[in-house]
């Protein structure tokens, strides 16, 4: 059996698109046939769970009993990948907790795979967050995500400042999530289905839907670009190291 993999998606700032990125990851793992479960820490009302109800649970990341639900089950669950969508402001505390419970030691010993997707905002404060967060991901993979989906302009990042920060974290990789057509994004929100399900023109229960072909096309194109970024950094290698070999590139396809 493959080593369990934990993927944490978070940021200390709110509204930077953490859940959107988590949703694209769940779609990506589904398309690669990697058994995946997700935890939504937007307790008590989860956003991620609305889109992926079959594989996600809402948890309170600050409660010990919920931390046990996530981490004590890593070796017993059927899912080889666990994605945790961390609520705004909880990324650093959660990573500290992972250190305190010995999770990061297990990663260091090679018993677990670990990746942090740190979603960056446009401000310098986001760059300051990197320093703190990166230290916890030293033995896993640290992925910095510039998310343009909500039209973020990384205007405060002049090239020199950007370079000075990134030089410090040689193992960090950077990916960009492009903007998605606003109306398409809104329609997926209304449909409350995974992006992949929307592209395939299906409803929440797998029934045929009647979404606009234009909007589905925009989502397919966007998701394909996001997945190209995941392919570029070889996510499947991260989640399958020590276990299943990564497969060929999977394309976003969907027909009505």
């Amino acid at each position, binding site marked *: 059996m493959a080593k369990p993999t934990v993927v944490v998606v978070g940021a200390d700032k709110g509204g930077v698109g953490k859940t959107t990125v988590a949703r694209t990851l769940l779609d990506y793992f589904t398309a690669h046939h990697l058994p995946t479960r997700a935890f939504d820490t937007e307790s008590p009302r989860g956003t991620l769970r609305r889109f992926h109800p079959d594989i996600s649970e809402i948890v309170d990341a600050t409660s010990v009993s919920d931390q046990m639900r996530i981490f004590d089950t890593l070796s017993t669950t059927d899912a080889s990948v666990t994605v945790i969508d961390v609520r705004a402001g909880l990324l650093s505390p959660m990573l500290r907790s992972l250190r305190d419970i010995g999770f990061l030691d297990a990663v260091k010993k090679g018993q677990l795979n670990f990746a942090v997707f740190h979603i960056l905002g446009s401000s310098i404060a986001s760059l300051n967050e990197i320093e703190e967060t990166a230290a916890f991901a030293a033995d896993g993979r640290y992925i910095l995500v510039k998310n343009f989906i909500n039209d973020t302009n990384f205007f405060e990042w002049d090239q020199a400042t950007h370079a000075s920060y990134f030089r410090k974290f040689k193992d960090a990789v950077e990916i960009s999530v492009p903007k998605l057509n606003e109306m398409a994004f809104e329609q997926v929100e209304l449909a409350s289905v995974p992006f992949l399900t929307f592209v395939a023109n299906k409803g929440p229960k797998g029934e045929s839907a009647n979404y*606009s072909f234009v909007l589905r*096309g925009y989502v397919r194109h966007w998701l394909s670009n996001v997945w190209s970024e995941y392919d570029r950094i070889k996510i499947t290698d991260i989640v399958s190291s020590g276990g299943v070999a990564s497969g060929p590139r999977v394309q976003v396809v969907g027909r009505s």
Partner: protein
Amino acid sequence: MAQPAPLYIVASPRPRNGKTLIARLLLEFLRQSRRPAVGYDLNPREPALAERFPKLVWPVDIADTRGQMELFDRLLADPASTQLIDLGYGPFDQFFAVMGEIGFLPEARRRRIEPIVLFVADSSGATARSYAQLQRRLAATFVPIHNEHVMLMFDKEDFPPTRPEYGLIRIPRLSPLVRGVIDRPNFSFNAYMAKQAGGPTEVHQWIGNVYHEFREFELHLLMGKLSSSLGGATAPKRQSRRLR
């Protein structure tokens, strides 16, 4: 098996080279042959085609997503009609960009709709480059239109059709007299052709020549499809009368 329904896209990246006139002629030609036809006018500022055919042609502005849905979703929803787009030079780039991004061409083919770009040529090098780029980018059928009113000599090297046997569609030069007649607001090519009380006029002859070009083109299109489905033997080449 029934042939796919054509979707004619009358296009050019430049203004004032007769796109709307050609779209008018083609629409009336389709109606004359009693085929269900519907048109879309993508000239948001001056939807001249939609104004002439208010019951057949819909003006659409594809500048925003809502307009794009209005156009592309409707095109896919109607595989039974022959559809026609009068693509103004303004939305030219955006139209083909959206078409590529949303994956319209494979979906149209899956629904048995055959997009055919009728590209109005002119003497500008930029137009020829645009034609070549589009042909490389999009797996649609491309056929050049030689509008003699816009360009007297046509260089076939600059505007090769998707298959050699498709040739080109030639729109004969208009005399000022003919132009004055057909530009009248309520003028109908078919209605005019039906009335020949005093014998055929120059206008009759001009319309007849254009319809003949359309008929020949459709025939060669059909023969091209049949020959490719039968294993690739090419249809006889069209005799283009004004090729250099």
